[in-house]
Each structure stands twice: as structure tokens, then as C-alpha cells.
């Protein structure tokens, strides 16, 4: 599940500058984007409101009501300790999405920094890209597992492990666009006018590299949610008292024969979220970066 590495697919002069009004109108006409946005809004609202709309505390046990099948009273059933699965799935979503958001933010900050430095000031390019190549030589989830296993299980571990895995990929995407934009005439003109490197980079180059970055980040979010589930399932994530979707699947696995819903429902929640993110990413890519039709992960 490597992130988009689109160097080979991107040609010069096709990167579009974000024009907020026009872009928004075109996005609203894009079916994939609208559907993805709707799915994600629903997931985000429901999980954000978890403290208020959960029927009970996610860890409250009621042994008398254990293994209740999904019903009107318990839409997602109850688990082996009688805990209400609606509450657990809602709270689990909070953690899963929070981890995804952190990974995206770290990718935005460090991916842009490293990609910009590498693409604009070519002096560090060789070294930075070799390190990126080396990190990308490992299968992505496998490297995340290795890092998480070394750091020891915790939520922070998962965030760091996934950030380290995806930042080189984001940096590469940004570097590719910086390399194209820095050669454009108006950048040369700015340089001729005596603008400093920092000013050129921040005011003239980076704003024109935002489109591919936004597309990339939406896919990073999707992979982060999927990979978080893998790491948590393997016991490398949050402690079991704070459920995430991956942990719920791991817990449900022991009772998969009698109580399939314990595994099925959290997995479906992941699928809906990731589907929403992929639709959103597809829509953004179609509108912002029309040349890039294929996602080469």
C-alpha cells in the first residue's frame, strides 16, 4: 500500500494553480467528490459527536447482556462483556480518524518541507532522495510494523510509524512538482527581479504545487486508516481500553464463529471511511490534476 508515486506520470506545464471559486464549482459537479464528501461528513460528524450520542460508555460492562445479536435495542449488538458495540464503534472511529489526521498533518508539514528543499535547493537533493528511496524499498506496512514493534505499542507509535512510512512518498510528489514549477518563466522573472530564494519558494513555487499535494494527502489519509487497523490488530497500537477499529476487529476475532457482528461491523466502518476518502481523492484528482488518471500506488 505505497502512496502515490507519480513522478513518472506527471508532465511539465500541466499543474494547475488552485482557483478557489472555480475549483469549488467544478468539484461540486464531480460525482465521486460529492459522494465521498457526503460519506466522510457522515462518518466525521457521527464520530465527533460520540461523547454525546453514544448510548453508553464504550467500556461499561453488563455481563447479563453479553453477546446480544444486533437488534432494535442494540443496533450493533453487544460483545463478550456486554459492552454496547454502537458506543465502541463510534469511539473507535474517533481514535482511528484522529490517528489518520495526525499522519496527514505530519505528512503535510514534513513532506512539503523535505520535498521543497529537495526540489528547489538541489544541493541536498541527492542525499534526501536516496534516503527516501531506501525507506521506500521496504514494503510500506512492513516498515511501519517494524518501527512500531521497536517503539513499543501506543497511539503515538502508530502515528510516528505511519508518518515515517508515508512522508518520503509525499516529499517525492511535492519534489516532482517543484522541479517543474521552478523552471517556469515567471519564476525566472521573479529571480531576475532580485527576489530571494525563500520568497520565490513560498510565494511563487509552493502555491503552484498544492494541487498534487492535496490529492496525495487524501490518499495518505485512506492508507493511514487502513494501516492503523493493521497495526492495532497486531497489538502495536492503543491499549485495549481505548478501542480503535483495528482493536475491535482483533477483539471480535476470538468470537468470530458465534458473534460475527463483532468483527463485521468495525471492518465495514473502516471500509465506508476509506471508500469515502478514495472517492474524495479521485474527485480531487480529476478536477485538480486532470492528467493523472491512474493511481500508481
Amino acid at each position: 500500500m505505497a502512496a502515490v508515486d507519480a513522478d513518472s506520470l506527471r508532465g511539465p506545464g500541466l499543474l494547475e494553480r488552485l482557483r478557489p471559486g472555480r475549483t469549488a464549482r467544478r468539484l461540486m459537479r464531480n460525482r465521486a467528490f460529492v459522494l465521498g464528501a457526503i460519506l466522510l461528513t457522515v462518518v466525521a460528524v457521527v464520530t465527533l459527536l460520540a461523547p454525546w450520542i453514544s448510548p453508553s460508555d464504550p467500556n461499561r460492562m453488563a455481563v447479563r447482556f453479553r453477546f446480544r445479536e444486533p437488534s432494535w435495542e442494540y443496533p450493533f449488538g453487544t460483545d463478550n462483556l456486554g459492552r454496547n458495540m454502537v458506543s465502541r464503534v463510534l469511539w473507535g472511529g474517533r481514535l482511528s480518524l484522529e490517528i489518520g489526521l495526525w499522519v496527514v498533518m505530519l505528512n503535510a508539514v514534513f513532506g512539503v518541507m523535505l520535498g521543497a528543499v529537495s526540489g528547489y535547493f538541489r544541493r541536498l537533493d541527492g542525499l534526501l532522495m536516496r534516503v527516501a528511496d531506501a525507506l521506500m524499498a521496504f514494503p510500506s506496512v512492513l516498515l511501519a510494523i517494524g518501527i512500531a514493534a521497536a517503539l513499543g505499542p501506543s497511539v503515538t507509535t502508530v502515528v510516528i510509524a505511519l508518518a515515517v512510512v508515508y512522508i518520503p512518498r509525499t516529499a517525492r510528489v511535492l519534489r516532482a512538482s517543484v522541479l517543474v514549477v521552478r523552471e517556469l518563466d515567471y519564476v525566472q522573472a521573479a529571480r531576475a527581479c532580485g527576489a530571494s530564494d525563500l520568497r520565490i519558494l513560498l510565494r511563487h513555487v509552493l502555491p503552484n504545487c498544492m494541487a498534487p499535494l492535496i490529492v496525495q494527502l487524501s490518499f495518505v489519509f485512506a492508507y493511514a486508516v487502513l494501516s492503523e487497523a493493521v497495526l492495532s490488530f497486531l497489538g502495536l497500537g492503543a491499549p485495549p481500553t481505548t478501542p480503535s477499529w483495528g482493536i475491535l476487529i482483533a477483539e471480535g476475532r476470538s468470537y468470530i464463529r458465534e458473534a460475527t457482528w463483532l468483527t463485521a461491523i468495525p471492518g465495514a466502518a473502516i471500509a465506508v471511511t476509506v471508500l469515502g476518502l478514495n472517492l474524495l481523492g479521485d474527485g480531487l484528482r480529476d478536477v485538480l490534476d486532470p492528467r493523472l488518471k491512474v493511481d500508481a500506488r
Partner: protein
Amino acid sequence: MARYTLKRLLQMIPLLLLVSLISFGLIKLVPGDPAVVMGGSNATPAEIEVIRRNLGLDQPLWQQLLSFYANLARGDLGRSLLLGQPVMEALVERTPVTLWISLYSLILTVVVGLVTGIVAALRHNTWVDQAVSILALIGVSLPNFWLGLMMIVLFSVWLGWLPTGGYVAPSTSLVGFLQTATMPALSLALLQIGLLTRITRSTMLDVLGQDYIRTARAKGLPETVVVLKHALANVMIPVVTVIGLILSVLLSGSVIIETIFSVPGIGSLLGNAILRRDYPMIQGGLLFVAAALMLLNIVVDVLYGVFDPRVRVDGRG
């Protein structure tokens, strides 16, 4: 061709050095004393001292690095704490299992991905195209291990068609292999099928719009010849390029999928090593897989030259 292959192999060396440095550095990430973490809560100070000495953690860093590379040069990745067996030996023993399942999964991916992608492109903008696109999108959105668990419920628990896990080598019994390997291979393949379908579809659409396809049709060639002979050859090129990527995703997924289906391959070996904090095994396993993947990528790139003569002429890279 031989020169190109040799060049690629030589280029691999600096990257391999960096990759091995990363896997060496992994143990430095362990907070506190790695020997204590590995020993577990019941270890006596003497036992911890033994672990520390065995891993060379009592030596200065430069000496650790030096002996790491000296051992690596002899193909020695250290000794697994859990199995008491050399890491390299354990990995090599289990490689065929993972290779067979990966190969099975790759075949499923290429066959299903190509066929659905081509069909969708030929029926562009019809319900077939839309259905394929939606299914491909769902395919890349499902967590593969969850899909594996759901398949166990459906095919093993409810229908009773397939065993819940285990592994039979194809050399022992082909039927046994298909019975045990189909669910793991399918769970691993799903994501790549979605990916390949999308790539094949958009490439095929590009190719079908080209002039030489119009020429072929204008000559009155039957549509099957146009598609299978003229278009397919060019669709294969991007497919070959993503095979390296597909293998990487396959190996990434193997840890969790092999653990779920109790397949005794490299993936479950690493899965167990993670649970028991067997750092030499984790380090060695990661390095082994990364190196294998680099080699496979070179093989793929050389094959690429077979499919696309242009690559051979300018000696890409």
C-alpha cells in the same frame, strides 16, 4: 541486456547499504534497554546480560555497526531469540511458502485485473464499465485482513468448503494447496485487483483512442484481433511496471494475512517475532524482504525491456 542487468545490480549496492543501515537502526529506536525489553518481565539480570552480550549491545556503537556489516557480508543476520535458530536459516526455510502464495495471488491479480479492466474499457460509459469501476473502488477500500476473516466465516464456518487455515505445499498435493491457499491469496489479491483494473482500464482507453487502432479497424480487421493483438501489447507495458509495486503490497500484507490463516511463511514468522519482541528476527526479516523486493524489481525492469524494445535501446536509468 546483460550489461543493463549488471548495471542495475551494481546500482543496487548503495541503496542496499542504506536499507541495511535503516534496519540496523531499528533496534536503536527501542526505548530504554532493548535487552530488558526482549528478556520480558520474568528475566533475571543474568539472563538479560546474556541477551545483551549475544546481541553485542555491550559494545560501542561503531563496533556493533562494524560487526553487523561483517556478519551481513557472510549472509549472517544474527540468531533469533525465539527460535534459537539463525535468522537467515529461518527465513530461507519459510520463503517457498510465501513465494507460492504470492505467485498464486499475483496470477489471480493479473488475470482478473486485466480482464475486468479491458472489458470495462471496451464497454466504456455503459453499466458494465460503471459496475467494474465501483467494484474496483470498493476493492481498494476494504481492509484485506478483515476480508480474510469474513471469508473464513463464509467459506469455512458456514459453508464448510475450505479449511480455516494451515498450508499444504503444491508439491505435496495441488488440491491441498488450492484448498489452503485460495483464501489467503484472494485476500491479498483483492487490493491489487482493484488497482490493476483501474490502471488497465485507463491505459486501454488511451490506447483505443490511438491512430494505429483506427487504422487496424479501417483495414477491416475483426475486433478481437484489434483488441488482442494490437491493443493488448501496449496495455501490457504499464501492467509490467506495476508488478513490482504489486509484489511490494503482497509482501506487506503477508504478515497479517499469514497470521490470520496460520500459514507458516515469512509473514507469520515476522508476526510472531513482533508479538515476542524478537528484534534480531524483525530486523533480519525486514532487510531480507527489502533486498528480495529490490532484486524482483530489477527482474521486472529487465522483463520490461523484453516487452518494450525502446527501453533496451536507450538503456534506461
